[in-house]
């Protein structure tokens, strides 16, 4: 019976079917409907599984990222000392809360209205797809092509949105592109593309007269450079690590080290609403903004938790996971 004619027939039919799927999806993206259904059906299951397995994964992750955790721990001690006295929180919950607070701080400086979410699943196609699934969806006001940030900067954009979960394209994916702006001193516009896992991003600048220098910071331009990818302005992208010498070309390029560690993303926020303009360079890690101004901005943010009046489902600080919901109202 092995290698029978029937077996070969079945193989041929299935390979043709797979080929048809590829053709249909490639030419028209018709399978987006299937992806949306899969997002609706499997997103919540992944969220459930992730709730159970997250502590295991974060243990592995903490072994892999011990250095950053030490740093985080220090921040944490300073930031939530008050909460610690009132609440009993596990180390994991504290780390998540600290991440969320930092994002909310960033969002409040920029006056972004954000929905916080947790990464439940990562990757696809052997890690060649730099994508992630989040536990928030259209029911929380999320739509396709919205900017996703964390406390360090630009994480990616949403590509598929289900009712309660959504899938994002990460910034290190080679298909990811974003309009970028150099620091305020020379506001040149360029294009930053992902370079693949653990690789530098690439900046392309179409003005060959501008001098690029190592150490310069890049933020999202926010301009409608790409009409289908409207990123919000001023989100930190990364820092130039090396400039490729321009010769003969119409453009010059540079390698950019992203601020976000894409291999360790956990709590993120989707920007559901943003002001048209944001103060230049106000979100960079070493922002020139004097500290007192920041404090004032924070306290007067209209989208601050607890006092917002948006329609249900679009609250400005939806807690990322049910387990921390009781602790993440205003600090």
């Amino acid at each position, binding site marked *: 019976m092995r290698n029978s004619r029937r077996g070969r027939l079945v193989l041929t039919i299935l390979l043709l079917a797979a080929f048809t799927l590829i053709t249909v999806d490639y030419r028209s993206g018709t399978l987006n409907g299937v992806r949306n259904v899969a997002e609706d059906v499997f997103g919540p299951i992944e969220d459930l599984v992730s709730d159970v397995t997250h502590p295991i994964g974060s243990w592995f992750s903490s072994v892999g990222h011990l250095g950053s955790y030490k740093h985080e721990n220090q921040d944490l001690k300073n930031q939530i000392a008050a909460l610690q006295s009132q609440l009993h929180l596990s180390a994991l919950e504290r780390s998540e809360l600290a991440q969320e607070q930092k994002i909310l701080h960033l969002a409040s400086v920029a006056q972004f209205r954000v929905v916080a979410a947790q*990464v439940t699943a990562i990757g696809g196609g052997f890690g060649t797809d730099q994508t992630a699934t989040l536990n928030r969806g259209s029911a929380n006001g999320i739509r396709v092509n919205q900017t996703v940030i964390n406390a360090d900067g630009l994480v990616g954009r949403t590509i598929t949105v289900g009712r309660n979960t959504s899938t994002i394209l990460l910034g290190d994916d080679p298909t990811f592109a974003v309009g970028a702006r150099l620091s305020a001193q020379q506001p040149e516009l360029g294009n930053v593309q992902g370079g693949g896992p653990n690789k530098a991003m690439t900046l392309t600048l179409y003005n060959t007269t501008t001098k690029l220098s190592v150490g310069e910071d890049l933020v999202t331009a926010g301009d409608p450079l790409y009409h289908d990818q409207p990123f919000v302005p001023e989100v930190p992208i990364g820092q130039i690590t090396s400039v490729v010498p321009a010769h003969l070309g119409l453009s010059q390029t540079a390698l950019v080290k992203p601020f976000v560690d894409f291999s360790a993303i956990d709590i993120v926020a989707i920007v559901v609403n943003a002001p048209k303009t944001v103060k230049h360079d106000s979100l960079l890690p070493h922002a020139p903004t004097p500290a007192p101004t920041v404090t004032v901005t924070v306290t007067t943010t209209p989208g601050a938790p607890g006092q917002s009046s948006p329609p249900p489902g679009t609250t400005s600080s939806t807690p990322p996971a049910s387990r921390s919901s009781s602790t993440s109202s205003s600090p």
Partner: protein
Amino acid sequence: MTIRRIAYRLVIVFAAAILQVVVINQIPLPGGHPDLLVLVVVAIALASGPERGAMFGFFAGFVADVLPPAGHIAGRLAFAYTLVGYLAGLLDDPEETSVFTTILVVAAGSATVVLVYSGIGALLGDVRITAHSTIHSLIPTVVYDVVLAPFVVPLVSAVARRLEPAGSR
């Protein structure tokens, strides 16, 4: 019996595909990650032959093609796993397959999946696929799969053989 057999396959595909994206891909392993689905496809194919191996491979691949957060042209993994399911099924064995054979089939199978998936991607002009990226995902995937093979494949195969109707092959 047939219903139990189908139910087992559904459960095993969804479990492997979801564990892959929720747990495996989040563990920071050097180089890459094991591919749970190729282990499962090889296990089922070794237990039930080329025809069912191909069908199971197609189903597993399609699930992996659309399960969030997949972000590539759908059908690529379905094509690759169908091929691997069929080829591994040609070596099927009504009794226990030896561990050595299992490891060889898994190594060949996971290499085939990476190469076919990347090859189709290259044909479609997927910018993620370069010779560099292919080799960099090929070697770790094969190594991790071979490491997991002796634990996962015999277990999945053994259950599949018990549920297989006698004399159906």
